[in-house]
């Protein structure tokens, strides 16, 4: 090695790669005094003994979400042990997850326990973070569906739908989507809601010890996925709903397939009722567990079955209708206690409501085009490519360069099985989103965990996680 190479490794890299240089400059800029430092402190829950009074109070404010009166009381007395009347040496902090079968992936909870009682709980996430929002800035609007569909992998079609609707709004074609495309989107969205809730039935049963329920829930979900495979070619991660419409029309015989699912499910759901809903052990395990009040749920931004379990009637399909939800009859199912049992019952009832909607869609499905005939966003039909050079070029351009979307920003939200899924896109006029953000319902909903678990038993922690039904792919994105 010559002397010229004896520089420190970092300098060597900087000399070679201009991209890295700019990154390093950013880093040093961040380290300026008074600026944001990158070493902010631990993400983990701190032990009481290792924290100053102010730190614990701050953490309690964030983690336990005490009521204002409680916090004020704590502030005046200054007696931190009043939080739960325990001494420092009586508690223990344990990890639950990230490798734990009931954490639905890689959710990690730090629980402070006194005996079997949970005093504090802090969810720690990020184990599945793959920078999907950053990736979304590199993909064209045509390719973006492949990215967002992998976020909430239990309801991929809803992710694609919200992304497509946001893109269409930016393009200004959201009013021109053909009728058949809209009804097809509704059909797929509702079937996806059913498959997602069936998966919840399976995992919820399994988490609570009804292991055979896992097989049953999975079996029924598979029937729906088989239909998706026939329509889209894939069981999951379809990239089927695209800006402008859908990728293809429904295949021949789709109506019979849907009817077969609709005829099969009611009997199976009655079996669930026998196995779980009316069963005393199951009810004992869920009723009164993980209670949350309407005010708390609203303050925490919870949506979907969690918000509805508290009695708040809020369903974007009814309250801010999109597609053709105004034209179908369905009930918004709400609970009254805000406990884990209500959340279970709501999801079971929502499967039945979705079946009702799907039956109406079957009656109302119009004939017509499955995508907008706008040359800007729609590739030419396959047959045209064989005979026309221009069509071939057009097709090639759309799939390589994509289409340009006018400057602007837009936020579109729809009701996914887990709550409000929103898509915020800022466009700079190019063919890739300048910024693509997905408001993931699970990401917001898991903030309720700390609140639901506080003061409960550690054995109920599993039931509470399960009742929130988080999908970690969407939490971490």
């Amino acid at each position, binding site marked *: 090695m010559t002397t010229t190479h004896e520089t420190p490794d970092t300098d060597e890299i900087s000399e070679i790669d201009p991209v890295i240089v700019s990154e390093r400059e950013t880093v040093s800029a961040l380290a300026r005094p008074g600026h*944001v430092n*990158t070493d902010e402190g631990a993400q983990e829950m701190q032990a009481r003994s290792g924290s100053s009074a102010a730190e614990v109070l701050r953490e309690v*404010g964030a*983690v336990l979400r005490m009521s204002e009166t409680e916090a004020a009381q704590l502030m005046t007395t200054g007696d931190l042990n009043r939080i739960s009347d325990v001494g420092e040496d009586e508690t223990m902090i344990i990890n639950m997850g990230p490798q734990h079968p009931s954490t639905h992936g890689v959710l990690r909870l730090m629980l402070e326990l006194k005996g079997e009682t949970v005093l504090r709980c802090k969810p720690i996430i*990020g184990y599945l973070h793959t920078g999907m929002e950053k990736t979304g800035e590199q993909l064209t609007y045509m390719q973006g569906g492949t990215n967002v569909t992998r976020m909430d992998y239990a309801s991929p079609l809803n992710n694609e739908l919200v992304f497509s609707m946001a893109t269409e709004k930016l393009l200004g074609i959201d009013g021109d989507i053909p009728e058949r495309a809209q009804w097809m989107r509704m059909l797929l969205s509702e079937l996806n809601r059913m498959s997602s809730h069936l998966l919840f039935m399976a995992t919820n049963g399994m988490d609570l010890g009804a292991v055979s329920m896992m097989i049953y829930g999975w079996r029924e979900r598979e029937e729906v996925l088989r239909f998706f495979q026939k329509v889209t070619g894939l069981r999951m991660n379809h990239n089927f709903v695209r800006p402008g419409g859908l990728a293809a029309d429904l295949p021949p015989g789709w109506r019979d397939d849907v009817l077969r699912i609709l005829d099969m499910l009611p009997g199976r759901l009655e079996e669930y009722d026998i196995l779980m809903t009316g069963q005393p052990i199951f009810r004992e395990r869920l009723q009164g567990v993980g209670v949350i009040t309407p005010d708390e749920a609203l*303050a925490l*931004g919870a949506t979907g079955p969690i918000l509805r379990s508290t009695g708040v009637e809020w369903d974007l399909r009814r309250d801010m209708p999109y597609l053709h939800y105004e034209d179908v009859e369905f009930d918004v199912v709400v609970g009254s206690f805000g406990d884990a049992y209500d959340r279970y019952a709501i999801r079971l009832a929502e499967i039945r409501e979705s079946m009702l909607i799907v039956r109406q869609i079957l009656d109302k499905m119009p004939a017509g085009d499955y995508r907008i005939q706008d040359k800007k966003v729609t590739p030419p039909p396959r047959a045209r490519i064989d005979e026309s050079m221009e069509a071939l070029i057009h097709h090639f351009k759309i799939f390589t360069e994509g289409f340009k979307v006018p400057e602007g920003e837009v936020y579109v939200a729809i009701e996914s099985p887990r709550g409000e899924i929103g898509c*915020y896109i800022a466009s700079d006029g190019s063919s890739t989103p*300048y910024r693509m953000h997905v408001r993931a319902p699970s990401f*917001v909903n898991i903030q309720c965990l700390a609140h639901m678990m506080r003061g409960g038993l550690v054995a109920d922690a599993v039931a509470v996680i399960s009742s929130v039904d988080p999908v970690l792919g969407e939490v971490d994105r």
Partner: protein
Amino acid sequence: MSDPVNEPDTTMPAGESPPSMLGCPLTDSHGQVVIHPRRDQWLSVVDALIADGYRMCADLTAVDYLNHMSRPLPDGITPERFEVVANLLDITHRRRIRLRVQIAEHDAALPSLFDRYPGTEAMEREVFDMFGISFDDHPDLTRILMPEDWVGHPLRKDYAVGAIPVQFKGAHQ
């Protein structure tokens, strides 16, 4: 006297003062109501909106406009590098409103909404993690998605993507 919150004066004829709401410029983005508070108005505007019924903060995120400083903004708003975007929801009147606030690069900080909407805790941590915008009075401002010893903020536009130093000398010429 009309309620300034419930009836934003969008009907103002052209040539007169531009539409505003709560003292902030008001714009329409594809039919969605957007207001542009200054940073020092942030908390007071949010308080006024809460009093008006916006009980839920559906979403809070940010955009790094480093490569797109020429974006259209209403008069009186100076474009800055960062923009924090909050989407508030009023479930009683079934309406939404979006707040866009400009954040300068040299002073990337904003008052936290945690006391108003506890649900913004994770969202503000995400913005902090991804953009390096700090939130004053946030109870637990740590990284949420990236590891706590990570260097840099990945969603910034000048954050290098996929540049991994390689050992082979000839690889970068």
